[in-house]
């Protein structure tokens, strides 16, 4: 019985994360259209309807999926048979698994059990997300290589270069966060952000590591391969690594980009925006800085925290979409320059600065 319950709980944790990420990814195709439209004084896609019901164009992701699935699945004659078919799956797989160690809530206690609300509890959660994100680029490189098309190859090569650039900046900028909270475990990092600085300011990563936040978000947006960092795709110049793909395989590459957006948003939330933390809400209930407390039931607290996490992720995604629909794209050399001469030295400086402050401050908050 207990084994079955354990299995059920493990399954439930994975299912929640899986469904959350997948649905967010699907929904983002709608958000992308609608948000860009409203930003540009347009209406956006609103024609797909089921029995006359349009629901602000919410059926368009569905219509897209049907269209993609019924299109011809074309494979060029000179393409590598195995790699060509495998590439989109690799892309989506790693984008999907990356979210696993991001916690979406505090420990849930029901029936004497303690359930940490994340798909898998990992001591090296930060490194895991990071590794999965980097592995995702293998799918893109495979696509570029196996298509038998020079433009696709160029796109794949650019994706690899961009990923390394972004990766170095991401890795170096989260170093400061790891130093401040003293852990590689995402859950511990989020817990650490529940502390209050000077008794009133939540010690979120954005407060303790403002520079790292900017650097991480920039590099993170680069890691999603979307405008302004879309050189692997470069619609206006090389079309990119998926130039030979059609049908649902093409859709999967587009999907992987959206999934990566969700992962980067989740990571930003967990590392810099306090994850599931609600300010002044701890396990027992609301506790305001000037001593006023209000006890809340455990389940409500957990629900509030999960809700806060989802809300923060949505806010970060909104911001990333805002960037995507505001900025023009970088040229390849500009992106490289920004990555290696801008983000990388700054994040190294951030590490040194964080070390100095920690030394003078005398430890962690």
């Amino acid at each position, binding site marked *: 019985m207990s084994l079955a319950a354990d299995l059920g709980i493990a399954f439930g944790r994975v299912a929640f994360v899986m469904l959350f990420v997948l649905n967010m990814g699907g929904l983002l195709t709608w958000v992308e259209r609608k948000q860009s439209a*409203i*930003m*540009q*004084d*347009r*209406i956006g896609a609103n024609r797909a309807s089921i029995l006359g019901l349009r629901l602000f164009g919410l059926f368009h992701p569905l219509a897209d999926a049907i269209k993609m699935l019924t299109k011809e699945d074309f494979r060029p004659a000179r393409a590598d048979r195995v790699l060509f078919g495998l590439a989109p799956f690799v892309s989506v797989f790693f984008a999907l698994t990356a979210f696993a160690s991001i916690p979406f809530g505090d420990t849930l206690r029901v029936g004497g059990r303690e359930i940490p609300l994340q798909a898998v509890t990992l001591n090296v959660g930060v490194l895991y997300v990071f590794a999965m994100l980097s592995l995702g680029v293998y799918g893109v490189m495979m696509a570029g290589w196996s298509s038998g098309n020079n433009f696709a190859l160029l796109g794949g090569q650019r994706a690899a270069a961009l990923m390394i650039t972004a990766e170095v900046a991401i890795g170096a900028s989260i170093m400061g966060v790891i130093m401040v909270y003293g852990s590689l475990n995402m859950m511990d990092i989020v817990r650490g952000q529940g502390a209050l600085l000077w008794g009133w300011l939540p010690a979120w990563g954005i407060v303790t590591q403002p520079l790292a936040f900017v650097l991480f978000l920039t590099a993170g947006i680069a890691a999603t391969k979307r405008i302004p960092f879309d050189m692997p795709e470069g619609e206006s110049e090389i079309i990119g690594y998926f130039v030979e793909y059609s049908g649902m395989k093409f859709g999967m590459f587009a999907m992987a980009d959206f999934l990566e957006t969700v992962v980067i948003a989740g990571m930003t939330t967990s590392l810099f925006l306090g994850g599931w933390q609600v300010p002044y809400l701890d396990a027992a209930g609301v506790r305001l800085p000037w001593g006023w407390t209000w006890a809340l039931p455990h389940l409500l607290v957990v629900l509030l925290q999960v809700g806060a996490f989802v809300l923060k992720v949505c806010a970060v995604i909104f911001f990333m979409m*805002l*960037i995507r*629909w*505001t900025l023009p794209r970088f040229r390849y050399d500009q992106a490289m320059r920004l990555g290696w001469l801008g983000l990388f030295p700054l994040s190294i400086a951030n590490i040194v600065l964080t070390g100095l402050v920690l030394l003078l401050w005398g430890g962690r908050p």
Partner: protein
Amino acid sequence: MRALQRFYLVEVLSGVALTAAHFFRNMGRHAAHALGKKDARGAVTIQYPDERRPYSPRLRTLHRLVRREDGSPRCVACMMCETVCPAHCIYIVAAEHPNPEIEKVPARFDIDVGKCVFCGYCVEACPEDAIRMDTGILEFSSYTRGGMIYTKEALLALEPAGPDGHPRSPIPIPADRTP
């Protein structure tokens, strides 16, 4: 100033502030519209097949042949329009008019709209004010070249556009296109 621009972050933030302001203003207008304030518009989009913007009265659209009171064409088959047409897309066959005071009448009057360049010379040239391009009809299409040829009967049946320039007669559908 240049250093500030090269630093990029300030410029990014000002750009994001601009687009975000548009987003939230438009969302507010959409919400006001949904709550009953019907003159609030969150977008400048005109949802074309459902709504049209007012057309200028000078807009040259599909031709029509003006009718006399008895319904016969006012055209006297003088061939002026056919001669002036730079695209050679008007084809007229003249016939005797039963009324001796009127010299001729077109037995056939075909316009190949697929060739027409909408210059309006035919309207300018006509001494009888018998051909006009004021139907407001823009949507003519066909699967074949033959389907783009409008005959005398079709052109005679058309009405002038309304005051906002929108067509009042239905779009003539060529025989090869089932609606």
